[in-house]
């Protein structure tokens, strides 16, 4: 039962990892940009939520409604003012600029909030559980997070494949120049894509901050988790990314059961194994 419980917790955490990954995957899919600062943006949004909660003493889960639009707005501005200027055939400029941004955000957070770890308190929901079987129960909060992740990924999938905006994003991703010939403003579309990415980041950030302690240095590892979920699941498939997140979460939970020091290692090893034996990911996009 201990094992079943560990695996169940791993599955639920996997939803959070999939949220880390979804925004990353979206941006890469639309403009071939790998945003190294993605993890730091998650932590930044976590601190913005913290400030919100401290100032107004609202529930962190409600704070999502404030932080997500702010984060989206910031994403649009960031894309229009910075990242759009780096996009081109050379992958180096966007990579290095986002890397620089990562260092800037980390140290700015360090300067403003110090290195102390913080946590958001969501109230009684944090300890509420639902008994599933004898000796096995599911926390309400992890369950809410997982369901939210599934809903968000389903929503992104719908947006991408069934709306005019999604059509525009896919067209731009296919062929930038011809998309312009259709009258699409690529710079604006990229801004929208980054805004959506960072709105998802905000949700992930609040969940992360409620679940565990966080500090300014936590970003890179969230980036790596998200990245691993994307690759394990297979590029260009959002449901695959969810599966990738779950696999990563379970691998970490099982690793931690064997030896507490192996939690992260087990996740990385699963990632490397996928890379070695199935580099296209477990669920690559099947079309065309």
């Amino acid at each position, binding site marked *: 039962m201990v094992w079943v419980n560990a695996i169940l917790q791993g599955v639920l955490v996997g939803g959070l990892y999939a949220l880390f990954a979804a925004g990353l995957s979206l941006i890469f899919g639309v403009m071939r940009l790998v945003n190294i600062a993605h993890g730091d943006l998650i932590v930044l949004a976590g601190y913005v939520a913290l400030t919100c909660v401290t100032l107004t003493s609202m529930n962190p889960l409600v704070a999502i409604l404030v932080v997500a639009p702010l984060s989206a707005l910031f994403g649009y501005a960031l894309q229009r003012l910075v990242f759009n200027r780096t996009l081109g055939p050379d992958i180096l400029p966007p990579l290095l600029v986002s890397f620089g941004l990562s260092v800037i955000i980390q140290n700015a957070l360090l300067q403003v909030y110090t290195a102390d770890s913080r946590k958001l308190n969501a109230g009684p929901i944090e300890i509420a559980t639902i008994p599933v079987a004898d000796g096995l129960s599911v926390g309400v909060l992890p369950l809410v997070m997982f369901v939210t992740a599934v809903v968000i990924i389903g929503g992104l999938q719908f947006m991408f494949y069934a709306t*005019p905006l999604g*059509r*525009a994003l*896919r*067209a731009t*991703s*296919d*062929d930038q*120049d*011809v*998309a*312009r*010939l*259709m*009258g*699409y*403003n*690529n710079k604006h579309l990229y801004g929208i894509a980054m805004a959506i990415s960072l709105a998802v980041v905000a949700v992930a950030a609040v969940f992360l901050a409620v679940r565990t302690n966080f500090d300014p240095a936590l970003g890179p590892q969230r980036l790596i988790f998200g990245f691993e979920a994307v690759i394990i699941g297979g590029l260009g498939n959002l449901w695959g990314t969810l599966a990738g997140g779950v696999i990563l979460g379970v691998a970490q939970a099982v690793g931690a059961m064997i030896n507490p020091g192996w939690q992260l290692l087990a996740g990385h090893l699963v990632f490397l194994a996928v890379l070695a034996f199935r580099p296209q990911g477990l669920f690559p996009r099947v*079309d*065309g």
Partner: protein
Amino acid sequence: MADALLQIERLNAFYGTFQALFDVALDVGKGETIAVIGANSAGKSTLMKSIVGLVPTRDVSIRFKDENLAGIETHDIVRRGIALVPEGRRLFPSLSVEENLLAGGQLKRNGPWSLNTVYDLFPILRERRAQKSTSLSGGQQQMVAIGRALMANPDLLMIDELSLGLAPIVIKDIYAAMPKITTQGTAALIVEQDTGQALAVAKRVYCLRGGRVTLQGDAKTLTRAQISAAYFGV
């Protein structure tokens, strides 16, 4: 010209330091069909891309509906009523046939063209509407590309290499559709390597060679000798 739609007085285009077009002058009247002919790398594609701002230009004067297009971005030029069917069709591979058409119509300009009228023009596309665009034959892809451009309800439709790489029977079908397009009041600027087709469909013809206009005139009155002199430079 009283009812001029597109007036190019002077166009110089560059790829890096390489100059591809030299002082090209050309105009298209409202509802007129014009053909641009010339050998490979004469600058025909560059001309079309320059008009919609996809190629860097210098020392240029292009007016569309009496507005100077200099410094306007591609997507805004398209919004003003110019559509380009690019060389090689270049459909969006991850979009279905219908989604390709809808992408073309996303500006929602007013005019005769809609999904239904495009499907009436090329009935085969109605059958294939849900398929991936990559699964179509070359001719069908060209139909989608033309339909996609029409969906924007342009005042000027530009088609780059209309017949290149297509089977003769398909070329015939597509050219048969051209009058249905132009009778709706849409002007057309067609780039062709097939001089015979160009002369048959166009009112006036421009010949490009080495990035310069070497001949221009009425399609009915130009002689074969004039054209081959301009085309090959002999």
